[in-house]
């Protein structure tokens, strides 16, 4: 096919540069802010470059907000628990939708997908009451359980295609050998769909990680259980906001997850989009 001319190449790279500038600008600004001493942050007129950049904020942030490490861990812990529980719930459900025929199948499936229409914000008031009745307010569960509920539909939708891809013959052979149905799910279907399980697991994790702020500020008052996005607000003091430390903490806080994501992104993107493109 035709090759790009020099002009076209320049246009493509400029386009990519503009696009990536938009995407990465906040990260760049957060990083630059984290390097500036606090009194220089509040210096007008705005300076693009200071000669006193330092990594001081990265040391001091742990003192300003002593629980910072805990918050970073909480974020990961809450998302991991959401992922674990969601996976346990959606594996049998996605399998049923992918492989079995039963009355009301389509109705049930659209009911699940219908949940996609809401976000937690719509149901906050009664959710608050449900969690209070269950005695879960101000615990990790107050953030885990709503997280799971709103990720189940997406999870089923993403996982179903992977189960559909497994050849039926394998199940038939096992059935002839006298394998039980649960045994079949556990020993044949699951091992064969490991790549899909990883993709959906990571996608659920990202979903849980990205959206814990609302549940945290509404259902949890216990500081020790707060996830990172809510915990960052402690950098907002009565007198000043230590913006530089807040930015440093935000960047360091998302680092572990970004790191894991970098390793998995190739599989994730290929797998995530496979389901969507098919539909």
């Amino acid at each position: 096919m035709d090759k790009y001319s020099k002009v076209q190449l320049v246009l493509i790279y400029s386009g990519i540069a503009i696009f990536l500038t938009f995407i990465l600008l906040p990260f760049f600004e957060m990083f630059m802010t984290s390097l500036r001493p606090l009194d220089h942050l509040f210096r007008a007129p705005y300076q693009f470059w200071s000669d006193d950049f330092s990594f001081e904020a990265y040391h001091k942030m742990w003192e300003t907000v002593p629980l910072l490490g805990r918050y970073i861990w909480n974020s990961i812990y809450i998302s991991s628990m959401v992922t674990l529980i969601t996976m346990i719930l959606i594996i049998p459900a996605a399998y049923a939708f992918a492989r079995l025929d039963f009355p009301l199948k389509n109705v049930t499936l659209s009911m699940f997908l219908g949940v996609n229409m809401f976000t937690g914000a719509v149901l906050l008031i009664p959710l608050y009451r449900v969690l209070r009745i269950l005695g879960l307010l101000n615990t990790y569960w107050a953030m885990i359980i709503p997280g799971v509920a709103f990720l189940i539909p997406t999870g089923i939708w993403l996982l179903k295609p992977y189960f559909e891809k497994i050849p039926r013959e394998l199940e038939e052979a096992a059935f002839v050998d006298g394998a039980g149905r649960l045994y079949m799910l556990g020993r044949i279907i699951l091992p064969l769909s490991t790549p899909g399980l990883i993709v959906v697991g990571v996608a659920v994790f990202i979903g849980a990680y990205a959206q814990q702020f609302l549940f945290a500020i509404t259902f949890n008052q216990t500081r020790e259980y707060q996830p990172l996005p809510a915990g960052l607000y402690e950098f907002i003091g009565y007198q000043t906001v230590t913006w530089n430390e807040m930015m440093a903490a935000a960047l360091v806080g998302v680092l572990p997850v970004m790191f894991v994501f970098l390793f998995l992104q190739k599989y994730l993107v290929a797998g995530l989009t496979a389901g969507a493109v098919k539909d």
Partner: protein
Amino acid sequence: MIVKKSKLDFYPYFLLAPSLIFILVIVAWPLIETFRLSLTDARLGGESYVGFENYQELLEKKKFHRVITRTFFWMFLSVGLKILLGLAGATLLNAAVPGRALFRVLVMPPWVIPIAIGCIGWLWLYNSHFGLLSGIAQRIGLIDGPFGFLAYKTPAFYSAIVTDVWVGTPMVTIFFLAAMQGVSRDLYEAAWVDGAGRWHRFRRITIPQIMPVIVTMSLLSMIWTFNSFEIIWILTEGGPRGATTTLIVDTYKTAIGNWKFGEGAARAVIIVALLGIFSFFYYSLIKKLNKFEERE
């Protein structure tokens, strides 16, 4: 069929039961409860049945009409931009140029990090005295003094849109990119042999081929954008003077901020109803598209 067909097979329901029960307790029951609350004047103190009074009040309120108009404007503008930017981004990242593997990874961070953390970055970018945007605008002489992007009604609204687009674009881009890569190369080569230029191939091959994904993503994106709460709440809390108050923010302010559970619930029910209409269009559109594909 391999599995014996007895008349009543509970196995599928047994497999579905855990997630079904979860959804019933955490989503369906609160939904019914929201509707019940919307017919009361529930506050912190107690509640009594008032019928459809909350709805009547809302429908008569000019302010609420503006909230609804604003929400739809917010949704269409933001989703439109996300789709356009996503298409442009995916097309650029799909170009066979050196470095594209790296560029594709660099698009993803806003999608992977907590929304609230990205918003904190934008909050500082928009700062009047110390933010980069105001700084650049002053330096190149666009404005005389510091400019608070979130301090005035119109700029605050469009600033919130920009941030919402920033949060939503990476995922749209990635899905479009994957769809573009799924388009058969033979189609392009045949068109190229026939002398079709790049723009022509984009319009006549790429767009029609990825149309199902565009439709799916647009509608999913609409639902998410309609309910986009954290971004507005962190940037402006719905202000200044209500300029960024969309339905979801109004619901939160009424129910959680002012403890008017009944009136908040009525707003929540209106959200669900409006989105229900949307999902109806969503399903019928997908069905139409599938039929269209089958015919070809």
